[in-house]
């Protein structure tokens, strides 16, 4: 058409998907403030279930002295990972504890001796080009790395597909489509070199793959910065994707980057893709190149009730209440506290809950917007249909859910729902579609297990 100036990334070709919504982003609250490193208080709590799969098994006993970076729990099955201590100190207790999801699981309590004595070899530089593929996978497994976008799926399993030659895309999910969250954005700006190095490490496992760092177009600085870092990389490029929720959902991101579509019963590897979150890839770099297991987490503290919204580099096991204090606490007592983003995060009723590998944010809101609109009858406006990124009919699914008609629910592909929350977000009648679909999906899954 007409000559465009040479670009390091393709500005015109923005990947996207059908459907989706545009909630208020609220990222400006915290996006321009540097991440602050936060040292924990006296007591740290390590729940044994910080990932999808079997809970880890403690390998320390009450009274033991542990060092920073020391493994305190081991994997208890195939889909399971170890957990490392993020401080040095004494094991005080191992007891059932409340976690973010509301479930009660065993947790190791460690009293911080504030010496931060590292375990032997922690932080040692390692030349990963000399490591075999299996060695890299083992390091990732031992480091306890899980998907840090929220789901917490063990990363070493993702990196071990059935056929590694079938993988042609390693996608780094830098879209961060959840409102208010800026931790991945800050990481891309502050630790971009580690991110790119993490991609290089993953690419060593997959000879035929190219690395794609996907970033939403509302983060021009990150796009610019990462593009600069990868300009000499033959196998890594930046892909700009359209700002839209849920662009960061695995299936939607794969569609945006590659044009391939997978359904709920397929794995990204079926489409030749492996998708990892920004923080996960940085953790892979830390583990493989710097001999550091996963024991920190960048958490966004934001929302209109927070005095000083910003990002914190937190040691896992630190309590939310300490992170909250570091952000200046509440302006006024909020109505709602959320762990994670506003679209898929979990409501908290208490701040005495530990930060885990999958905690991405702590948000506090003065008003709970879900209480502002009373629930009215469905007017069949079709907004949920327009919004659904999975091309479903949430309205009919909810009708089926309300009559406990599991057969109809499944017949209209209800199980393809990923509970992204778009339908509830757009519903003008204030109906709680996602919530109802979530419940029905759970009960159907439970019934399948019983059979």
């Amino acid at each position, binding site marked *: 058409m007409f000559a465009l100036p040479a670009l390091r990334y393709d500005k015109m070709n923005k990947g996207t998907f059908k459907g989706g919504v545009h909630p208020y982003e609220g990222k400006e609250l915290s996006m321009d403030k540097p991440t602050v490193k936060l040292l924990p208080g006296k007591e740290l709590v390590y729940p044994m279930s910080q990932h999808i799969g079997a809970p880890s098994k403690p390998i320390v006993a009450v009274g033991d002295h542990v060092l920073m970076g020391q493994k305190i729990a081991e994997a208890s099955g195939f889909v399971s990972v170890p957990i490392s201590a993020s401080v040095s100190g004494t094991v005080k207790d191992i007891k059932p504890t409340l976690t973010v999801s509301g479930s009660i699981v065993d947790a190791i309590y460690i009293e911080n001796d504030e010496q931060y004595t590292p375990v032997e070899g922690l932080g040692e530089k390692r030349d990963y080009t000399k490591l075999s593929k299996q060695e890299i996978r083992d390091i990732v497994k031992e480091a306890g790395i899980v998907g840090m976008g929220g789901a917490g799926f063990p990363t070493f399993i993702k990196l071990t597909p059935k056929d590694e030659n079938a993988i042609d895309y390693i996608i780094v999910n830098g879209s961060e489509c959840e409102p208010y969250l800026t931790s991945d954005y800050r990481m891309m700006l502050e630790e971009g070199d580690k991110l790119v190095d993490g991609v290089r490490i993953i690419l060593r496992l997959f000879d035929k793959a190219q690395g794609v760092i996907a970033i939403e177009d509302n983060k021009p600085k990150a796009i610019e910065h990462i593009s600069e870092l990868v300009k000499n990389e033959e196998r890594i490029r930046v892909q700009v994707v359209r700002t839209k929720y849920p662009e960061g959902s695995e299936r939607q991101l794969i569609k945006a980057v590659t044009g391939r579509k997978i359904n709920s019963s397929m794995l990204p590897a079926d489409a030749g893709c492996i998708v990892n979150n920004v923080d996960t890839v940085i953790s892979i770099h830390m583990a493989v190149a710097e001999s550091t297991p996963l024991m920190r987490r960048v958490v966004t503290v934001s929302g209109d009730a927070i005095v000083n919204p910003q990002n914190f580099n937190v040691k896992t096991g630190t309590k939310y209440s300490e992170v909250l204090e570091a952000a200046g606490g509440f302006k006024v007592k909020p109505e709602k506290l959320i762990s994670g983003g506003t679209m898929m995060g979990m409501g908290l009723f208490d701040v005495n809950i530990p930060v885990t590998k999958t905690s991405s944010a702590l948000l506090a809101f003065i008003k709970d917007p*879900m209480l502002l609109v009373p629930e009215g009858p469905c007017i069949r406006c079709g907004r949920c249909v327009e919004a659904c990124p*999975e091309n479903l009919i949430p309205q009919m699914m909810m009708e089926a859910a309300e009559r406990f008609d599991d057969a109809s629910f499944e017949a209209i592909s209800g199980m393809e729902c990923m*509970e992204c929350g778009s339908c509830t*977000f757009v519903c003008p009648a204030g109906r709680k579609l996602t919530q109802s679909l979530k419940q029905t999906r759970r009960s159907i899954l439970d019934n399948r297990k019983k059979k």
Partner: protein
Amino acid sequence: MKDLYNVSASPHVRSGVTTRSIMRDVAIALIPASAFGVYQFGFKAFLVLLTSIASACLCEFLWKRFVVKKSTPYECSALVTGLLLGMNLPASVPLWIPIVGSAFAILVVKEMFGGLGQNFMNPALGARCFLLICFAGRMTAFAVEQSGSHFMNGAASIDGLSSATPLAVIKNLEAGQSISANVSLADMFFGFTGGVIGETSTLAILLGAVYLLAKKIISLRIPVAYIATFAVFVYIFGGHAFESDGFCYLACELCGGGLMLGAWFMATDYVTSPITKGGQIVFGILLGLLTGIIRVCGNSAEGVSYAIIFCNLLVPFIEKFTMPRAFGVVKKKKGGAAK
């Protein structure tokens, strides 16, 4: 227990659009057409609209007060139903007609079937068709008295208006008579013709439609499928295709009658149109065919109202056959289990 917060399942945010804001926007979009109706037909038209809205709102209030007995949020939907019904009545009707119509629309078509969201056909059109059947004479008396207090202004512009609508004029033309000589296309577009209060001005209706599209209240799927199908149908089967004024005939058919009001405001009614995207296109095409058949083959020059309420009844079937395939799900193999 001092630190307890609200806990609910995600998501924790909502968009600002509510049922009430949608109804308000639809009412705003109807203002140009109804204002033009009042300008053209005078104070009598205003009274008809007002009576229709007031009685619709009153019926809904009474039903909720004495039958539902639960306080429900007020959605302004009765206001839109009342306004649409009023716009579908000739200005010359006695005022008990809009009252009977509103009562039928709200009580029989809407509330008896479960209220907002549950009605099986468009309440305003259901009531209009009920009135057409019961009081055919009064409902088709488009003749406008040119004396008396009914006219505030604008009387001059409708001088020479016959009791028949332009579409009736075209339908009853004798062979050889030219269309363009008997109706003025410009008058039809701007609305200086006979008809019900809200349907005459294509321009005013399109203004409202643009507002609805801009506000994303409606999509183009139903109206465009409807109007395009109808245009093709009447052009081919209308019998004027090979005459010199074939396009004039087509334009008259598009501007005349309730087509524009029906396509943009009635067929797009959320409750009574398919929720699937494919279904909306099928719905529009069926409407176009049916309206064309009624106008070309039927006795009446009109057909929009009947076409819409008839297609309303087909909505569950249309939805059943136009269920979209979920993201990433491949077509089922023959005999394969649903997965």
